[in-house]
């Protein structure tokens, strides 16, 4: 045995010179790395040259600034993806960092985007072993995991905006689950614990509004609304039948304004159910976005070509101006996942088409920043290449910047 062979990996000493950022100070010690590979690191002063020697660098970790209204949170919980953060004003649309998520996780952001909440399922050995159902809480500036709140579970599904959401005051998280029964888990975010679980048989998804309420969509064509009382008891109200669930159902990525409780439920054929979800009976008016555009409202024909909504996250609302953005494509009925070739901009209250924005490449998803100077984010582009993210002026529709990058998924923005 050769005793001179030393252990390969040792935490050996070097001078603290580098730590103190004195780049040209000679190292006080050498580093041993195997007896036969002894060599010295010398940061000795170079012979005088015209350019200075580049200083030694200390490894550090980036921390983000607090999110402004143009921070972008792209969510793609598949194959090791998760949340990728961008800044809408960054000309390069370069990642600011990312947060991993399990396959089919769900996500929600508080209005100031100071946290990222992820409903996740883990098995201790990847696809097997002990199961953990948790709500992971990340600090959205350090991207450090802050806590893991045990929850009963969440629905594993192609990600939808309405799988999970926060109460208007950001104090409660509502998480939709399908087994053992269709229900919503309510998490008290301050206490970091489950507050209650509310069964919503026959209905699914959560559209929070106000301090302690959420809407839900039901398989019989009604809209439900659940309100929690102070003891976490709950009551549910239903509308009359407002849509045909077999032939022209409400799309999952419909929108309820968290603050005002105004619901905008979009159907496969392009009807919007405008439903104020305050007190009392739930009802509302139904209007057609094609009629708002001066066209005929299409029916449910499988060979009835018309402009129709389609995609994944196919609808966005700019709350202050009441503008609704919808991805539209020409197609027959049952093409509700087809990528949009245009974005239609509609006045949510006047029921008027304001603008049609043609897209160079069809896209499946759209989002809009809140507040002043809104930016329109278009993503989920078709094709084999990188998914891309295009940033447009939300008022004019003009392309401001964009960049190909890999991904698909949903985009979340602060202020919603």
């Amino acid at each position, binding site marked *: 045995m050769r005793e001179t062979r030393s252990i390969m990996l040792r935490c050996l000493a070097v001078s603290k010179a580098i730590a103190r950022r004195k780049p040209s100070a000679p190292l006080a010690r050498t580093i041993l790395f195997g007896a036969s590979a002894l060599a010295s690191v010398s940061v000795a002063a170079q012979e005088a040259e015209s350019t200075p020697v580049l200083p030694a660098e200390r490894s550090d970790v980036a921390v983000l600034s607090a999110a402004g209204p143009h921070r972008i949170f792209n969510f793609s919980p598949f194959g090791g993806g998760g949340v990728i953060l961008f800044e809408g004003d960054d000309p390069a649309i370069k990642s600011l960092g990312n947060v991993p998520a399990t396959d*089919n996780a769900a996500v929600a952001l508080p209005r100031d985007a100071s946290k990222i909440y992820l409903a996740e399922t883990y098995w201790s050995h990847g696809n097997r072993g002990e199961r953990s159902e948790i709500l992971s809480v990340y600090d959205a500036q350090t991207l450090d995991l802050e806590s893991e709140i045990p929850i009963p579970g969440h629905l594993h599904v*192609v990600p939808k905006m309405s799988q999970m959401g926060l109460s208007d005051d950001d104090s409660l998280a509502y998480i939709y689950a*399908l087994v053992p029964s269709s229900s919503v888990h309510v998490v008290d975010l301050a206490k970091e614990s489950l507050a209650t679980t509310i069964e919503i048989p026959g209905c699914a998804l959560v559209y929070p509004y106000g301090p302690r309420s959420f809407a839900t969509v039901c398989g019989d064509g009604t809209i439900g609304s659940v309100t929690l009382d102070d003891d976490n008891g709950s009551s549910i109200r239903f509308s009359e039948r407002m849509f045909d*669930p077999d032939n022209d159902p409400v799309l999952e990525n419909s929108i309820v304004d968290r603050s005002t409780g105004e619901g905008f439920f979009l159907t496969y054929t392009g009807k919007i159910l405008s439903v104020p979800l305050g007190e009392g009976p739930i009802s509302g008016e139904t209007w057609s976005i094609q009629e708002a555009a001066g066209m005929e409202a299409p029916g449910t024909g499988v060979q009835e070509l018309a402009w129709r909504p389609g995609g994944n996250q196919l609808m966005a609302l700019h709350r202050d101006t009441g503008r609704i953005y919808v991805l539209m494509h020409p197609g027959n009925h049952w093409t509700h996942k087809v990528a949009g070739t245009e974005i239609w901009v509609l006045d949510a209250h006047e029921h008027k088409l304001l603008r049609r924005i043609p897209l160079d490449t069809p896209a499946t998803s759209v989002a809009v920043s809140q507040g002043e100077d809104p930016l329109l984010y278009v993503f989920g582009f078709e094709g084999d290449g990188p998914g891309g993210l295009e940033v447009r002026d939300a008022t004019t529709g003009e392309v401001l910047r964009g960049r190909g990058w890999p991904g698909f998924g949903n985009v979340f923005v602060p202020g919603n």
Partner: protein
Amino acid sequence: MSERSSDNMCERFVRKVARRTSRRSLLSKLGTALVAAPIFPLLPVSRAGAATPDRPLTDFERNAQTEDPNRCDYWRHCAIDGIICGCCGGGPHTCPPGSEPSPTAWVGTCLNPDDGRHYLIAYRDCCGKSVCTPTGSDCRCNETDRDLPVYRPQSNNDIIWCFGNSSMAYHCSTAAIVGVAG
């Protein structure tokens, strides 16, 4: 290749749920339902009116083929969303080795162009194993004929149908014939 039975899955499903949840009222309901019922995988439901003989064909139905089950345009795939198990070592109703068919499924009503009949197709996911890496260029499909939102779960193709499996990890999706659509 030989076969392994997927019997008693529904029973296992309910037992697993029973272990995992603390909601006793629900459990007792489920328990009661089971006592009265033979044990068999949950079957999907037909959607009324899906198979009207004289309605026009959807784009999928116009283009569907019956030769290659490992392509998205195979007739049974009219409402599939996922990776075809045939691209992963399985087949139209066969899970790849080491995975398990889900006891639950979503359903499509697809037209077989060879016999002109509409069949109920159960899109049973194969589960318990990480996502399959398919070999083939047309293995990841998203067809949406009569696909409904998650509040109509048995007609929804976005849900991971791995409830009651040893783990809910999604591997791929099959498209088994359940029967003729009535």
